[in-house]
């Protein structure tokens, strides 16, 4: 992360130093510090509170007796605390669902992205529009007909059906990311391979795919976390508690305080941490990928 951050700063650093400008400074210093502090508090506090709650004892949580500082010494007991919630079962399910969604989505995306980037064909505009417009369809509005469709196909109450439905929502973005990546690869590389008599499939899988690997990785992360976070379809399709992903499992605790809250928060922390870590690692690519996917028409 640190190296990533350093990059743009060093890039502009010489100019900036020379500038020393009132021009770039839109706020006076105390105001700036105050505003930054407010932002950090706003963004950081809820996460801090989640950690604090997970490290509190159940009895401290009620009657506003929760301390302001986390009990770090309880970190060691966190395993036992989490044990009261079947979170590991649910996290495994989340992993299967997110992994399946990613794999299937990427296969479609690499093929379609290649076609959109490198071919001119009749109906290309229509295919592009389909891939663009379907991103705009709200999940919650489609959940009823998809539920009806899956009920008639017998695809409810299984992770396979859920993966199939998830892919429909994650694949369009991936296609745009992959298409953008292939667009950026000079065509001459493929030409050279083609002259050597390479068939197209080989060019795509052995020449192009390694070159766009960073973008594939970014698309994979986006897909994985879409699958990891997905709640609505999972809640609607899967009734059996043992098959729930962690999102549905954890949501079942909201507003019910039968299970001790510190266990629930500890489990939620476990569900959140992988997302935070991965996000910090690939943040930049995710942001450009997401916006590229939604903007390219």
């Amino acid at each position, binding site marked *: 992360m640190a190296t990533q951050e350093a990059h743009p700063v060093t890039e502009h650093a010489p100019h900036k130093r020379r500038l020393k400008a009132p021009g770039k400074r839109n706020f006076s210093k105390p105001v700036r510090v105050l505003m930054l502090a407010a932002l950090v508090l706003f963004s950081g506090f809820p996460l801090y509170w989640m950690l604090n709650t997970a490290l509190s004892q159940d009895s401290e949580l009620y009657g506003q007796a929760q301390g302001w500082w986390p009990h770090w010494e309880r970190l060691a007991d966190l395993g036992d605390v989490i044990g009261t919630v079947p979170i590991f079962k649910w996290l495994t399910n989340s992993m299967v669902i997110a992994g399946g969604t990613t794999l299937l989505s990427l296969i479609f995306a690499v093929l379609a992205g290649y076609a959109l980037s490198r071919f001119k064909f009749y109906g290309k505009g229509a295919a592009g529009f389909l891939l663009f417009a379907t991103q705009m369809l709200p999940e*919650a509005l489609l959940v009823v007909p998809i539920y009806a469709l899956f009920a008639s196909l017998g695809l409810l109450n299984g992770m396979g059906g859920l993966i199939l439905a998830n892919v429909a929502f994650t694949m369009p973005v991936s296609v745009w990311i992959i298409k953008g990546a292939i667009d950026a690869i000079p065509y001459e590389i493929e030409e050279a391979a083609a002259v050597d008599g390479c068939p197209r499939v080989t060019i795509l899988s052995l020449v192009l795919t390694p070159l766009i690997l960073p973008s594939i990785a970014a698309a994979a992360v986006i897909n994985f976390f879409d699958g990891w976070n997905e709640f609505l379809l999972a809640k609607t399709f899967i009734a059996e508690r043992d098959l729930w992903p962690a999102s549905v499992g954890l949501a079942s605790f909201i507003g019910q305080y039968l299970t001790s809250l510190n266990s629930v928060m500890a489990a939620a922390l476990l569900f959140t941490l992988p997302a935070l870590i991965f996000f910090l690692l690939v943040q930049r690519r995710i942001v450009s990928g997401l916006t590229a996917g939604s903007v390219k028409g």
Partner: protein
Amino acid sequence: MTLRTSISPPAVAPTQIQDAPSRHHMWQRISPYIYIGPAVIYLIIFMIIPVVQGIQLSFTKTPLVRPDGGTGVGLDNYTRLLSTPQFYNSLGATILYTAATVIFAVAIGAGAALLLNQAFKGRTIVRAIITLPWAVPTVATALIFSWIFNRSDGVLNEVVGVFGVGQQGWLVDPKYGMAAVVLTSVWKVMPLVMLVVLASLQSIPSELYEATRMDGAGALETFKAVTWPHIAPTVRVVTLLMTIWSIRRFEIIYLLTGGGPVDSTNTLVVNVYRQAFSNQELGRAAAIGALGLVLSLVVTVVYFMMERRNAAKEA
């Protein structure tokens, strides 16, 4: 790659790849369809057909327990919807939620980007903290905030108590329900605005600043002359994205308030879900869904037209 619509350069050239001489002409012509076919067919099955079925469903009375056993009722669902205040209330909640979330997320996000565009000690860590909420899964977000907003034991009441305000039911009082879900949503989506605007700010050439400084421009004038014109297209696009995403946002609202208190946060998407899975009326749910689709479609078309216009301007 970020927010500019790029024109894919090699749209024509690739057809020159010859797998072999011209007897493969047919193969040449069908091969793009082999690559794009799976994705297109998939989306037709899982997106287009459900949309069509959803519209069909909206003209029927279909119970949840027998999704394929509906009876046709014509326009009944629609006329009933449009004649009850509940639907207009839901539409109003959607517009209010969307407007408030977008305005606050874009204003705070863009402000944060401007602040973070200046070098200061600890910038990396501040930036990371402000960015993190975006990566927090929605369900975890709802869990955290439902605890913070908790009526009897939540920390927010503890904080406002310091100022002499009594305990408030942030999630159960119709006065505060909408504000609570908007606050939570802004917390979650603001970082994306910040990151995108920051990327745009960092692409402003410093020469431009230098030039305005030579002209003796003050901070505000510089902002108006250099900064804003440069980031305006980005802000516009991110505003539209935020709008589309807010209209369709379901989880945060459903998990925090379930559409309540007293339907004050019953946005169209939440309404669809409740009609379908609580009231078990798939037909009426589909009708609300169809009307919601129209709203999304309007926004999408506006978005498309603006993009076209901008692309034309850039060219």
